[in-house]
């Protein structure tokens, strides 16, 4: 048995020259990274209605990235990190100037302490925000009926990963707890090391998943990993000496001494943080989970229509079209979700090599329809929540319903980016009457539940109400249908008749099919208090 005769203790009273330079650069870099630099953040935070908040309002407080003025923004690829590069160059220049003016300084223990506090809390609130959406499993939704009946090859890969997590809510809850725990550990100085490790592991995965599956938060997740790595640097030396060099290690830490005023400020800030990101966020996230799950539409669908249907009869302009898997007009099936969506399968062959022909407007229009476009959790209106809808050879419509006359007013979930379509609303052609401004008559509106009121009042929020009160220019690009429905035998047999998107007369008979899916059904379902009636 031998004991190494050395011990190790870092001298923090005098820093080495390179340490001071690195610190100055890091300080400028991380402070700027931790402060919202875009105007958008201030606008939305000031607009926040604290009396009717949405979980997303809180999440958005923690959602910002460095936003440098005068440069372009990109969604994909290395150039989407361009803000960081600019910031990094500014930090280097600033750090060097600082070095020139602050030569006598021996150490920055106090500043380093506070920088770590800021980085810890910045990363912590982000992680809590990420984690909560999975602890109450809403981020990854269970695939809707339409998707359960869509061939795997018709689903873009981004959806595959997200739905995979969606089919196992308990696994999602677990991943949420990992992120949440990382956040909570970062709020506490002593547990910072473990919080940072968890952060790096969790967000490292998120980062690569977003690159590999073409998601859209690769930059945002890298951001947190960089913060985590910065926090770990602090421990690296001690850990190396204890574990690799096997030396007796005496860690040296600097703690500022707090005056009384500071003490109260500190307690106040800490409490405010805990209040907003735990005490307030938990119930808001719960309300979102049960009333307004943000990745699926929340207005309940017509109760007796819900389920998967075979199309047993299909008439277009009074002409019967027999079933054929290769026909491009006839519906092959229909799926009424428990929320207000109807989707149907149709043969719309995908053009060849669309991946290589992205800039081609024809292909682009097609791609938008088939689900390459990824939508984030931001949309508030049901019609904009396309996460559940997109797959090729399937079209999905959002509907509002006149419950007295049994009429569905349907709007396409996807928007063809075609300017011509926006003119339909002004068309004088009587064929286009379903595209007129008042395509839903005042009488019909009287028989409808308002879009805002469609969910129980506990689920409503100012954010959601505001979204519905705005007119979206995209809505002019949507196809419409107006179909009367007759539900026989409690919806076992449904007849739809009316005008389709080309104003042709449509008559469809649907037969409900009891499906026996191999995918297990789940118990921990989002939106349980909104949809209420059981699934078919």
């Amino acid at each position, binding site marked *: 048995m031998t004991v190494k005769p050395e011990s190790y203790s870092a001298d923090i009273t005098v820093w080495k020259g390179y340490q001071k330079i690195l610190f100055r650069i890091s300080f400028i870099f991380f402070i700027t990274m931790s402060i919202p630099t875009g105007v958008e953040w201030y606008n939305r935070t000031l607009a926040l209605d604290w009396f009717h908040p949405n979980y997303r309002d809180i999440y958005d407080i923690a959602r910002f990235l460095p936003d440098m003025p005068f440069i372009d923004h990109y969604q994909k690829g290395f150039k989407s990190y361009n803000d960081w590069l600019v910031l990094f160059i500014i930090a280097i220049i600033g750090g060097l100037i600082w070095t020139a003016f602050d030569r006598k300084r021996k150490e920055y223990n106090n500043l380093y302490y506070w920088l770590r506090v800021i980085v810890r809390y910045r990363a912590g609130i982000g992680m809590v925000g990420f984690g909560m959406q999975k602890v109450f499993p809403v981020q990854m939704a269970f695939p809707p009926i339409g998707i359960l009946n869509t061939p795997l090859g018709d689903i873009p890969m981004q959806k595959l990963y997200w739905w995979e997590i969606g089919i196992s809510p*308990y696994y999602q809850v677990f991943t949420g707890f990992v992120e949440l725990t990382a956040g909570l550990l970062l709020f506490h100085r002593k547990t910072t090391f473990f919080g940072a490790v968890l952060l790096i592991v969790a967000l490292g995965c998120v980062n690569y998943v977003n690159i590999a599956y073409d998601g859209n938060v690769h930059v945002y997740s890298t951001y947190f990993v960089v913060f985590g790595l910065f926090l770990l640097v602090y421990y690296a030396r001690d850990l190396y000496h204890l574990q690799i060099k*096997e030396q007796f290690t005496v860690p040296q830490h600097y703690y500022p001494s707090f005056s009384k005023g500071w003490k109260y400020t500190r307690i106040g800030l800490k409490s405010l943080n805990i209040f907003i990101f735990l005490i307030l966020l938990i119930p808001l996230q719960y309300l979102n989970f049960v009333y307004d799950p943000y990745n699926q539409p929340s207005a309940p669908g017509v109760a007796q229509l819900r389920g998967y249907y075979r199309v047993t009869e299909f008439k277009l302009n009074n002409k019967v079209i027999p079933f054929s898997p290769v026909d491009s007009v006839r519906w092959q099936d229909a799926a009424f979700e428990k929320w207000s969506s109807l989707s149907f399968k149709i043969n719309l062959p995908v053009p060849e090599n669309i991946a290589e022909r992205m800039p081609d407007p024809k292909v682009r229009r097609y791609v938008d329809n088939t689900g390459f476009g990824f939508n984030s959790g931001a949309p508030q209106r049901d019609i904009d929540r396309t996460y559940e809808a997109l797959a090729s050879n399937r079209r999905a419509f959002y509907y509002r319903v006149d419950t007295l006359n049994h009429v569905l007013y349907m709007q396409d979930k996807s928007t063809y980016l075609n300017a011509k379509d926006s003119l339909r609303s002004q068309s004088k052609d009587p064929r286009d009457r379903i595209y007129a401004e008042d395509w839903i008559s005042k009488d019909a509106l009287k028989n409808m539940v308002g879009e805002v009121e469609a969910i129980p009042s506990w689920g409503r929020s100012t954010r959601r109400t505001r979204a519905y009160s705005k007119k979206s220019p995209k809505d002019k690009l949507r196809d419409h249908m107006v179909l009367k429905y007759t539900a026989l035998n409690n919806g076992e047999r449904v007849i739809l008749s009316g005008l389709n998107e080309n104003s042709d007369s449509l008559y469809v008979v649907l037969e409900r099919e009891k499906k026996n899916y191999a*995918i297990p059904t789940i118990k921990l379902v989002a939106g349980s208090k909104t949809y209420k009636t059981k699934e078919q």
Partner: protein
Amino acid sequence: MTELSLKKPAHQWSALEITIFRVLFIYFMIQSVPLDWKYYRNAFAINWADLHYRDLFYLARYTPQFLEPGNTLTWGISNLGDWLIVLITATVGAVVWGYIEQGREYSERFIDERYSGLYYVLRAVLRYRLAIAIAAYAFIKIFPMQQPYPSLSLLNTNYGEFTDWKVASFSYGVAPSYEALLGWVELLSAALLLHRKTASIGAAFAIGYIGNVFLSNLGFSGGEAVYCLYLISLGLVILFYDAYRFYSLLVLAKPTAPNTFQPFFLINNYASRLLKAASILIVVVAFGYFAWADYNHGGYQYPTTSGLPNSSGLYNVKDFKRDNTSIPYSLTDGHRWQNVVFEKWNTISIRTNILQKPDMHNTEDIYVNDKDRIYESAGTTGRHFYTYTIDTINHKLLLRNKNPNSKNDVFALQYSGAGTDHILLKGTDISHHPIYVELEKVHKTYVLDESVKIPRYRSAFE
């Protein structure tokens, strides 16, 4: 500055510590050192002249199994009952051990050296055991084979017609670079485990990683949850040695003593290092080479025998006659086929309105022979999978259902038009009714394929 006392007294092993250690020592030795005779039976059944990755894979996936008879084709996975038997054995062993040592007068230093030494030995054994176990799974991801890209038949199966385990599998299969990354993470933790000083960091890595796999197994009905727990338990023993040190240094921020135990080797230090390096090299090279060889042959999940020449694709069933009567397109008729997929290899899959009772296979198994490769047919209800042999003289396909729940589903079909867009199949189905099937090729572009092709680092949408 704190005054440091650098002379560390011998660790005083309490009676309780010694008792617990004895049980754990025997328990984990039995769990990790191959003592099960069946292991050697299987090892001797290997044809070493024609070695495959599967042979190494099963050698590395050793767990003592008392309750399952096992077979020579695969080395199964132990269950909790086996663990109980090991635990009982270990307890009995510890009692006997205590009895032997009872009444003998040992100095504290002697006890410390003996038990610290045994602790070192135990950790060393577990480190290598865990590293090999992890490496065996790492290489089938580094060469992304464990979760392959979905076959044409799977692309034409509805999402709801897969089991959750299957969904989990192809969700990784569509992103081979992610799968490979996970493999490298596994390999890194295995490498850290091999070095004494980094072992605890490697074990922490492994526990986190396998913990995630464990929960995926629970969350997606996988079959390897107990094996994950087994590996995690090995990792915990390795990590436990340094756990308090980490806690003391990183959380309590107190002066912390390092490990002071230095192993003493019978052979000199350089020789032992050389031996270690050589054995690691052999393992890495062997694993890497045989995994690469499998990968080069298209992986191990799908069969490799060629199918009907130039015929792979999706076919619409344009006409279907049974008993010489044409049945129109129907989503309710029990007999009519809807579409047929010819794979590049000798599998066809048929979609009818009758669901297949799924094969619930949910553990990782590597097979050399095509007939055993069931990845394509396991965990799905939407299609009926047949492996076939071609009689090129009489233009006949002999079809056999791949699903163990449909073993008797065997029939023969006469074919014509192979290699064209129109294939005709004639024959009798399993209930001896004559069938006539007219197939028309569908030239379909799959959105999934296209979305995979989008270059990740190039801006695609601007």
